[in-house]
């Protein structure tokens, strides 16, 4: 199987989401948004938001690689966090 590169921002955001999945969804989204704001360079956050807007190109295959469950390759908690960040 060839390595399918998952866009960095999506991969990292999904990782953050998985580590907050034990929290109630609203608290998780808040914590994820807070983490992204405190630790991510603004251009990365912009790319993340743009990627969400674009429906995250090339979602097939990548979903399995990073374990994301969202229709466009994003963990639903990331999508919820992104909403808070807008």
């Amino acid at each position, binding site marked *: 199987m060839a390595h399918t590169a998952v866009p*960095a921002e999506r991969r990292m955001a999904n*990782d953050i989401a*998985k580590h907050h*999945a034990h929290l109630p969804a609203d608290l998780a989204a808040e914590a994820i948004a807070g983490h992204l704001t*405190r630790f991510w*360079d603004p251009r*990365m956050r912009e790319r993340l938001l743009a990627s969400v807007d674009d429906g995250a190109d090339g979602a097939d295959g990548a979903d399995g690689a990073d374990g994301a469950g969202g229709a466009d390759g994003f963990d639903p908690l990331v999508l919820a966090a992104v909403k808070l960040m807008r």
Partner: protein
Amino acid sequence: MTLLKEPDFGTPERPGPATVSVEIDGMPVTVPEGTSVMRAAAEAGVDIPKLCATDSLDAFGSCRLCVVEIDGRRGTPASCTTPCSEGMSVRTQTPKVEKLRQGVMELYISDHPLDCLTCPANGDCELQDMAGVVGLRQVRYGYEGENHLDAEKDTSNPYFDFDPSKCIACSRCVRACGEVQGTFALTIEGRGFESKVAAGAGESFMDSECVSCGACVQACPTSTLQERSVVDLGMPTRSVVTTCAYCGVGCSFKAELRGDELVRMVPYKDGGANEGHSCVKGRFAFGYATHPDRQLKPMVRESITDPWREVEWDEAIGTVARRMREIQDRHGKGSIGAISSSRCTNEEVYVVQKMVRAAFGNNNVDTCARVCHSPTGYGLKQTFGESAGTQDFRSVAEADVIMVIGANPTDGHPVFASRMKRRLREGARLIVVDPRRIDLVRSPHIEASHHLQLRPSTNVAVVNAMAHVVVTEGLVDKGFVAQRCEGYEDWAEFVARPENSPEATEEVTGVPAAELRAAARLYASAPNGAIYYGLGVTEHSQGSTMVMGMANLAMACGNIGRDGVGVNPLRGQNNVQGSCDMGSFPHELPGYRHVSDDAVRGVFEELWGGTILAEPGLRIPNMFDAAIDGTFRGLFVHGEDIAQSDPNLKHVTAALEAMELVVVQDLFLNETAKFAHVFLPGASFLEKDGTFTNAERRINLVRQVMAPKAGKHEWQIVCEIATAMGYPMAYDHPSQIMDEIAQVTPTFEGVSFDLIDKLGSVQWPCNEEAPEGTPTMHVDEFTRGKGRFVVTSYVPTNERSTRRYPLVLTTGRILSQYNVGAQTRRTGNVAWHPEDILELHPHDAEERGITDGDTVTLASRVGTTTLKAQISDRMPTGVVYTTFHHPVTGANVVTTENSDWATNCPEYKVTAVQVRRARVTAGD
């Protein structure tokens, strides 16, 4: 032996509250109970002659030179083995003992070469000194009797010779190897006249278990064990106390020189971190500093395919400044940044981040700690409130149970490992949590009570299971938790869930439930339980979670805030702690204060002028991604070799190739310099004034012992770049930089070069409340007030073994080499490790038809490399291991983009791989 001698009291200190008063040659002295007569005499200012005694070793009583007379006692007892008792009256110089001592010396000298004038130890020999002290004038026995003068010299070790013809069989070397180093490689072989020092079972030093720590050389009172450099160059004439530039232990050394030539590094007894001990790197592997590979002139080139052109400093600095500004003009302020190094001084690191924030006008600064201990900073800040370990190294001497998680201290932090082993020999119990059977699991006089041989990437499941046992079996220190912590109830409910039990996690972790339960009980029930951990914790996709998991466990068991306990990161490089302290992370200003904090930014803006961005900048992996997407175009790399040390090298080199300007400042034209447009020669630690901060928050002075070979200090070069970019930065001396750090950083408020010089070293926080520093943190309350329990759910890594890549690769380092090997590969240490090798379990080897020494290919989903195999049953099945010390191997060709969720610290410890026997072509 050493040029400048610290006081030697002959026998170790015996601290204790009870004292006894004695008289030594009529002088009264009061000492702790158990103190030897020899030591009491030394404290009274009376030096009793000695040969087999030295205060780093227990008394041995073999040389009989230290005999004394004691009123009311018969005979002439050895002062080293005789403890003081109340009212004792000792006479150290009487006709009787003088005659005895002369007789003893006559016997020694009758079987010792009379070559003092041509001996390498001439002027630095205790036998020579003692012959003078006892007034030896004749040897009545002559020199023609049976002797050892023709004994064969062992020159197998690259750094020291063993000349048995000069041995007086005092056993100091043997005892140092055991008591100080804890290796027990040396012994006295034979009886009576046949007695001789032997390495291993009659092997050469090189073939024995000797780890070349130098403790035997240090202990030898003659020239029997002698540094080769002293043999070759002669006795040094001056000595400067400075700090080792290798691992995070931060040993103090006396750099001993003849003129500007470094002859040897001798461990400093008063060094707070090492107290006179050393390892093969710090003691001997300094030759890189004067290696001919050093590039001493600045160089520039337009493109990385052009040849380098040597230029003067002004042109090089001007080129950097001009091209950086041009990039910003075209692509914006955020298009450039810098990576600082944990090998550089605090002052150098501070000016790099200041240049980025004040001159570049952004927060795109990161440090190589990103790829090792950034999860430590995150995890300990979240739980305890401070991004640092809790103890000093001495604390381990008070530990009753020591839990080592994901660290291999005998290789990575050998001088601290010797302290730890000493405590273990005294009876402390040991728990090792590691996929590999590291040496500490079973070594001379040490055996781990429990080795939790977990599967890579399952640390969090293991620590949660241990916490499950503690909570469900009533082992929590409820008083500590109630008084000192918050968030306990939620956490306790979480870890007590059935899915976190040892039985439930066993299938994932591979750790038998009963073994884990026993280990958890042992740690929790110890009067003092201490956790020490390394990159086997941090370099995972759950690295930060695991750091918080360990902090949770320590708090639950009340193992914080006193000697013998704590959560202690073993830092990789010499100044990992310091580089993080100095504001090298893109989201934090010095002192771990977030850039979004208006008040904190205000302090710096007022001092520096201008505006500091309130948004975090790019971390190292983010820089590479941004380079490839075109938003990051210029990078200043200070003392790091990212093209060898960082993961997924194909991605790293693609990023470097995409940049318009890469500036490398280093001692050598390293792998990253292949992608550089400007090369700025760096200075070795011997050429620097400054400070390093070790893993115990100890700030040590680095003192310049020779002029910078390239003509400029590194901090000065950074200041000149900033100035050339239009932001004037100037200091006369690094002490002024430290003064500025103290001015803006509350935890460093009281720190100055003068204070460090006066105290020897200082552990931060150092401020009004702790004017001489803080050896143990969180004593009465945590830095954040209450210690915070954090729920640490176990999230498996994305990296999965597959049919195509069925094995798991984990990477690390070995004793003789250091990091990317830029330093140690240019020393005699290559004798031990000339190339990276792949360790794999016999079963995995057999399945693949691989035999020991075969060349194999190591392939992951991102790359392939080739190296030699070593079959080793210390690996579990399914796990292979290699180091990343040699660029020709390029171990990081195969490591992936996976990283810690919170900090982006790469997941070096888990890569799914396949190993195959390489095809051997004709001629191979």
